[in-house]
């Protein structure tokens, strides 16, 4: 009996991500959820600008490539055009929490019936490791070579906490993919975020605390330890909003 295999919604191609990059895990989880809900034929994915820009080649559903930060606006258009389609965005921290902050906040405030998968790895990966809106205080990056100085660069943005203050969004949860248990929890959250859309409940965002071994300068294994020891204490995992649970 096959107990684990590549999900059908994931394209059978080699992904371009660096060795040990957890984008691949999250891609797979999204594809597994699409398979399990049987929605591949009506799902439209919106790829961001950043490391996952080429996500459009990795999912077998219809895909759109959006401008940097604009994925929630593009998703809004796609969803409003054909409300029966299931529309998700897949965005990194620079895309969602910096240049696209307005699109993120307002799509949440409108309770737009879309699903957002938000990868928080505290760095700009594609451009070679610059400081992100979610980089930790003191974190060394190419553009914070002496460590993120919060007096000059400000503090990291906690997206789930911030959006939870809005009346709009349906569901906000932060998960991580640093070990088997957390990956399984991440999948549950992603599944709920898609199921909410199927059930027409509205805006659902899952923040996935992830790793970037290459730009953190760590081995894949040590990068996951860094997630455990540094990231998760600053970005506590859990449900930040779930309207339907009340």
């Amino acid at each position, binding site marked *: 009996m096959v107990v684990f295999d590549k999900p059908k919604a994931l394209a059978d191609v080699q992904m371009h991500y660096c060795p040990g990059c957890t984008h691949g895990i999250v891609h797979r989880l999204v594809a597994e959820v699409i398979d399990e809900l049987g929605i591949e034929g009506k799902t439209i994915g919106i790829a961001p600008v950043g490391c996952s820009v080429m996500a459009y080649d990795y999912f077998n559903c219809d*895909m759109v490539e959006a401008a940097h930060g604009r994925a929630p606006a*593009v998703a809004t*258009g796609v969803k409003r055009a054909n409300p029966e389609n299931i529309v998700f965005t897949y965005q990194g921290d620079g895309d969602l929490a910096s240049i696209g902050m307005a699109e993120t906040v307002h799509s949440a405030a409108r309770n737009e019936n879309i699903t957002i998968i938000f990868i928080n790895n505290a760095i700009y990966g594609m451009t070679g490791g610059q400081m992100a809106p979610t980089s930790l205080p003191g974190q060394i990056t190419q553009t914070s070579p002496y460590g993120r100085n919060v007096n000059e660069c400000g503090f990291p943005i906690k997206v789930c906490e911030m959006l939870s203050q809005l009346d709009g969004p349906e569901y906000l949860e932060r998960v991580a993919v640093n070990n088997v248990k957390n990956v399984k929890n991440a999948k549950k959250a992603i599944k709920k975020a898609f199921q909410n859309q199927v059930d027409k409940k509205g805006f659902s965002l899952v923040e996935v605390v992830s790793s970037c071994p290459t730009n953190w300068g760590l081995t894949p294994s040590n990068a996951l330890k860094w997630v455990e020891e540094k990231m998760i204490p600053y970005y506590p995992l859990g449900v930040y909003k779930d309207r339907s649970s009340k």
Partner: protein
Amino acid sequence: MSEKVLMKGNEAIAEAAIKAGCRHYFGYPITPQTEIAAYMAKRMPKIGGTFLQAESEIAAINMVYGVSAAGKRVMTSSSSPGISLKGEGISYMAGADLPALIVNVQRGGPGLGGIQPSQSDYFQATKGGAHGDFHMIVLAPASVQEMAELTVKGFELADKYRVTSMILADGTMGQMMEPVSLDFELAEEVEKPWAVTGTKMGRKHNIVNSLFLKPDQLEKTNIERFERYEIIKQNEVRYEEYLMEDAEICIAAFGIAARVARNAIDEARKQGIKVGLIRPITLWPFPEKAFADASNKVKQIISVELSMGQMIEDIRLSVNGKVPVTLCNRTGGMIPSPEQVLKAIINANEGGNE
């Protein structure tokens, strides 16, 4: 003859868009085009359409990108500073070959500028308007009837050629009230097999995208797009001539400037001066041949513009030095008066070409 109703230019655009099958409008408030949004806000919910006031011009154009990617007719409208913000999305739509209608009811610039009518976004509209190799089809109405007709035409051309169409109007055209007939003959809507509507597990996935990391591929897509532009240039040039048969002086003007120019031309004719008008209706593709032909028989072309002189460059390229091309203009929200244009005509008639 169909029934006519009295409408503002901005409202005529909105109603014509609905008649053309547009059911999705996204915008952000800016003077002097707000009537379009207000009209859509009233009408769209009653016909099962979407009106959404976006958080910014940038978000609005990206919502347009999304609807267009999904294969539906969609539009946005704004005025000059807002169009600059839409530039990013306009370029991405060009790169992804997505059709849409964009309305620019121009006001004076640069910067925040003013809120009075202007034509100073001519360069921006006709030369692409944002980064990269691309063009939009640019339509310049000179009456409320044309505001409506060119809106319908804009949607049809956009779908036919997979480009964005822009209505380049100005504050005067937007606010002007005239009787208008909204009885259009609509072309058959084109199929959009490239749209993202879900694979229904029956085809390979569609990808709407403007990223081509391999330079030879990007070059190829740009060349293919420009081959389509050549077809547009051959088939879609539109302009109107007025009293050009025996003209010795040619006025070039579009939009509100053309209306002013006609008054001046009528007055000059009374004084026995043989002057006519070429009014470009498509600013891109530009009616190059009309001006080249005119340069064989007139002694001067006067470009009347509400800018520091932008269309004049395309006229000069079209006539290639054959006749002098002079400028009669106001800018910053000011409109040339018929007297000013008449003076320019008399000056040209007396041999002045400064």
